[in-house]
């Protein structure tokens, strides 16, 4: 009897325990589900930050806070939405932004989009008609793509308005001309040094091997050889090599070395016609040189699949000794190398003569980027004038210095009227607060009134000197302001054919005949039309004077 009662009791207890356990489990599961949803929602807004929306919402928060403050102030600040490419690793802090807003009386909402995704974002913005009031391009190539949209009347023609703004009128007219479409001006530009390409290298390695900086292309080859074979870091192991390059034929090493071989810049004149650079023998000479360097192991063999970050890492981690690119990067490269190798000395060289003993280097058309004003977002002429008013203020020393250099004492100090950016342990602060806005500032030092830089780093002083010297040896792109509709439609595809062929030649997968075949293929797929259209535009522009 007792046994049965116990049995039944036990069974009941077990059942209750199971029921309770089941209830606890389901409660637990429900709570986890809820957390999961919350986490997903949080991640959603978090990942929006990666796409640039976070900055907007961040700025919007400070904006709404500010708006409620200034609602009590006499004038409601005009709000401007801006979309720009983000060249730094992280979003900038809003310290400078707030100061600029205060001083100019505008509310700025920046949408920072990572530089690598900028083309996609531009097209998405175009497709979804979600334009900001100020739209930055990324570079010359994206500007070309948008020329059709400009011709279709999507953007404000700002040329006639500039004379009403005292500071904007100071923008360099030649560079403005370079950005005109069909003779009309739609853009403001960000100035860039015309010819700042060269090489950044490990001077301590050079000194240890008792060598001199190369003055011609053969000496450069020998330098790369020495850096690979002669143990320049003195640790007894053959663990270094010469040149570190990446998967970019333009802003990597290729185009700069090509210009040292006197290859035309994008387009060159031959028998009165303009032809693309790859149709010139100097281009093939450059490819042969790279092939020689790579085959011998004096550069990273996997450079066609190496990203910019990895390329820099190879240098800053002490594996490579030469980095060919913008000499003005010497400071950041130095900042990243010194923590790993406190004895490293960074320097630059650029005057590398070609096989004939002459020196040339390629130039950009004076602007690194341009910005435009979409009619979809800027509804009236008054709106346009308000926005131009902000940019007019950007061109004053007060605001320009704020955006380029930051706060005196905090990010830089004045030395002989030049601004010396703080480095060392303050470098991070400067990078976080100021550097991104520097990329967004229009004009250049001469026109927007900001201080020239005082470079304490010898490499940077050397770079400044060299890039000024380079101005006398520039190869310009004669087709910089010319257009071809086929290029706007198929540019990417055509470009891919020739850059693929270039890489394949350097890797030894195709030979000279193969490269010529690629050129014929390029012509067949639309390149022939491009040549014709560019030359037509060239003749027209020559007649126009």
């Amino acid at each position, binding site marked *: 009897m007792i046994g049965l009662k116990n049995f039944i009791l036990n069974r009941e207890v077990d059942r209750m325990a199971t029921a309770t356990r089941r209830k606890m489990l389901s409660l637990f599961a429900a709570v986890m589900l809820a957390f999961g949803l919350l986490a997903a929602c949080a991640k959603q807004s978090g990942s929006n930050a990666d796409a640039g929306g976070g900055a907007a919402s961040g700025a919007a928060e400070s904006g709404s806070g500010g708006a409620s403050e200034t609602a009590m102030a006499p004038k409601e600040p005009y709000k401007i939405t801006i979309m720009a490419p983000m060249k730094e690793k992280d979003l900038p802090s809003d310290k400078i932004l707030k100061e600029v807003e205060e001083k100019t009386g505008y509310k700025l909402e920046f949408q920072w989009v990572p530089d690598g995704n900028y*083309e*996609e974002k531009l*097209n*998405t913005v*175009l*497709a*979804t*008609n979600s334009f900001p009031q100020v739209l930055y391009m990324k570079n010359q190539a994206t500007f070309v*793509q948008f020329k059709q*949209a400009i011709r*279709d009347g*999507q953007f404000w023609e700002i040329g006639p308005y500039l004379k009403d703004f005292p500071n904007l009128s100071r923008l360099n007219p030649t560079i403005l001309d370079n950005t005109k479409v069909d003779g009309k001006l739609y853009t403001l530009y960000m100035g860039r040094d015309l010819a700042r390409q060269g090489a950044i290298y490990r001077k301590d390695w050079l000194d240890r091997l008792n060598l001199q900086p190369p003055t011609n292309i053969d000496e450069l080859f020998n330098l790369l050889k020495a850096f690979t074979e002669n143990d320049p870091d003195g640790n007894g192991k053959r663990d270094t090599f010469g040149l570190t390059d990446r*998967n970019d034929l333009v802003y990597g090493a290729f185009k700069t070395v090509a210009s040292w071989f006197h290859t035309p810049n994008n387009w060159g004149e031959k028998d009165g016609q303009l032809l693309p650079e790859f149709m010139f023998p100097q281009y093939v000479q450059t490819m042969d040189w790279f092939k020689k360097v790579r085959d011998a192991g004096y550069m*990273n*063999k*996997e450079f*066609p*699949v190496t990203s910019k970050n990895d390329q820099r890492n190879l240098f800053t981690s002490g594996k490579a000794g030469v980095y060919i690119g913008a000499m003005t990067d010497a400071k950041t490269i130095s900042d990243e190398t010194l923590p790993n190798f406190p004895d490293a000395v960074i320097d630059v060289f650029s005057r590398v003569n070609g096989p004939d003993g002459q020196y040339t280097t390629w130039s950009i058309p004076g602007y690194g980027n341009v910005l435009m004003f979409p009619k*979809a977002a800027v509804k009236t002429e008054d709106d346009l004038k308000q926005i131009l008013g902000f940019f007019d203020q950007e061109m004053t020393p007060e605001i320009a210095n704020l955006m380029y250099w930051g706060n005196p004492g905090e990010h830089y100090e004045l030395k002989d009227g030049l601004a010396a950016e703080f480095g060392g342990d303050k470098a991070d602060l400067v990078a976080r607060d100021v550097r991104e806005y520097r990329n967004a500032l229009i004009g250049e030092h001469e026109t927007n009134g900001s201080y020239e830089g005082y470079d304490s780093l010898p490499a940077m002083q050397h770079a400044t000197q060299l890039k000024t010297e380079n101005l006398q040896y520039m190869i310009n792109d004669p087709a910089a302001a010319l257009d071809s509709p086929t290029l706007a*439609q*198929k*540019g*990417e*595809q055509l470009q*891919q054919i020739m*850059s*693929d062929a*270039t*890489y*394949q030649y350097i*890797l030894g*997968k195709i030979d000279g005949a193969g490269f010529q075949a690629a050129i014929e*293929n390029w012509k*067949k*797929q639309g390149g022939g039309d491009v040549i014709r259209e560019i030359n037509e535009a060239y003749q027209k522009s020559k007649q126009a004077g």
Partner: protein
Amino acid sequence: MERARRIRRNKWLYLMILPGFLYFVLFKYIPMYGLVIAFQDYKPYKGIFGSEWVGFAQFSRLFHDPWFWEITRNTLVLFGLNIVFFFPVPIILALMLNEVRVQAFKRAIQTAVYIPYFMSWVIVVAISFVMLTVDNGIINNILTMTGHEKINFLLDVRWFRPLYILQNIWREAGWGTIIYLAAMAGTDPQLYEAARMDGAGRFRQMWHVTLPSIRNVIVIMLLLRMGSVLEVGFEHVYLLLNPTNRHVGEIFDTFMYTQGLLQGQFSYTTAIGFFRSLVGLGLVVCANAIARKFNEESLF
């Protein structure tokens, strides 16, 4: 009346399906109206109703594009490789795992093969890059240490397809294995007993009992795989593309990316996507009809 009462009786079930149903209607069916831009010369600022109608011009452009045949060939080859080499792997893995008696070991392996499924393609490709590079990658180091020549995996076009399949298997086989294992768990043990009494060894049992019992799951999975393979795969292939393997690697999806998002050719790429979806649909319908013919389970 009868139907209404049935709905009301199962109303919670219908409510549960509702979010999924809404998702498909909102995100898969309604956006289909956008296909119309494949027949236009779409300019975003003119909108759909303002853009010029060009009929089949974009499709004609597609068929005359010098890249078209290469892209079609590449897409179909990768698709074929997927079906032939990738598809059997989860089945084999599941069969093997099914034979394991030690539950802890079985579950450990199950989890281990399932985990890569949660890694994004970026991670998978990045790991492969680091391991396979000639500049001191692990695999090449092992090769040189055992006296072999270095193999240039990343820049040698002959390795593109093998790498693609191997990475696919590593990442996705685990997921299929789980499904097949679950199906195998439902096999009637009496069938195994009967087979054993008839003198069937392990392999015979697998062939005559296990496989046939999951035959309908295999067919459904094959049909689903066919439908999805033509669609998924952009990330994976895009990450693997480089100047040396483009002519075997460029598929519809990557081409659409270059043309559409980078070059802004919206109408053209919609036409391309439309065409690719038609091909995928054709494949699934054919496969489904064949399955029907053999009195197998089919999707519709």
